[in-house]
């Protein structure tokens, strides 16, 4: 019974804060409304006894949203929402498409005869996940690692405006990189 109540509470909270993301003026509030939505959604995952994944989502999303807040405030013209302004295009069309998608998905969800449950959850789902990732699903893990590595390289290349010639001179012969801020290793 309390499972049911907790689910509806989390679901309503996640949907409500999700809508708030696009309704509030302040970018900081939008970011943290999104974080609240993620945490409520993670609550429903915890109800499915996926403790590891639920807590992992919370952990990752807090860090991600704080970083996101930094970028939000960097790039938005009106980060604190003190002067409300509209930053949307094609609002009615978007609402219609979103509502239509929801109606379509709900119809499909209710009409499809979903298969019945096959087997029981393992006593420790975390162990099952680890064994799958290091066993039969090893390829997934390897691809994820490669994708993350490629992302790191690509995002640094895109975001930085200084290359090695800026740092070490045209002949790359400077002993010490010419950086605007020097780190702690006295290089």
């Amino acid at each position: 019974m309390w499972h049911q109540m907790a689910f509806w509470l989390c679901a309503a909270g996640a949907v409500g804060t999700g809508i708030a993301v696009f309704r509030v003026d302040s970018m900081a509030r939008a970011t943290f409304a999104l974080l609240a939505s993620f945490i409520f959604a993670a609550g429903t995952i915890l109800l499915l006894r996926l403790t590891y994944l639920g807590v992992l989502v919370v952990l990752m999303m807090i860090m991600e949203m704080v970083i996101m807040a930094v970028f939000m405030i960097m790039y938005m013209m009106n980060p604190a929402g003190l002067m409300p302004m509209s930053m949307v295009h094609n609002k009615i069309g978007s609402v219609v498409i979103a509502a239509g998608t929801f109606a379509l998905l709900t119809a499909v969800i209710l009409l499809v005869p979903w298969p019945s449950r096959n087997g029981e959850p393992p006593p420790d789902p975390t162990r099952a996940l680890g064994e799958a990732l290091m066993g039969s699903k090893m390829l997934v893990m390897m691809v994820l690692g490669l994708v993350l590595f490629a992302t790191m390289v690509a995002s640094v290349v895109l975001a930085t405006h200084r290359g090695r010639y800026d740092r070490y001179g045209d002949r790359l012969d400077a002993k010490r990189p010419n950086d605007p801020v020097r780190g702690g290793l006295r290089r």
Partner: protein
Amino acid sequence: MTLQMFLIFAAALFSIGLYGALSQQSIVMIMMGLELMVNAIIVAAAAFWYFVAPATADGQVLVLVAVTAMAVEMAMGFAVTTAIFRKRDVDMTDMAADLKG
């Protein structure tokens, strides 16, 4: 709790995210919409794992893939925003429509 409840919840999150991704002008706000949509995938994958196939870990692996996709999407999104902002002082999609056919 039933599978249908979880899936309808996921569909609601997905639709909200879709609305945001379609209607917002700022690149950063569009990314928030995308994140909501991926979050719906996470909920749906977890629900499918629990209610349909709990014996294998496939659903859990899918959740992990979705979480990684979120991180990658955000990192690349901000890198592109930074690059385009640095080059042209642009932070809205409507101002970066050079490739529009």
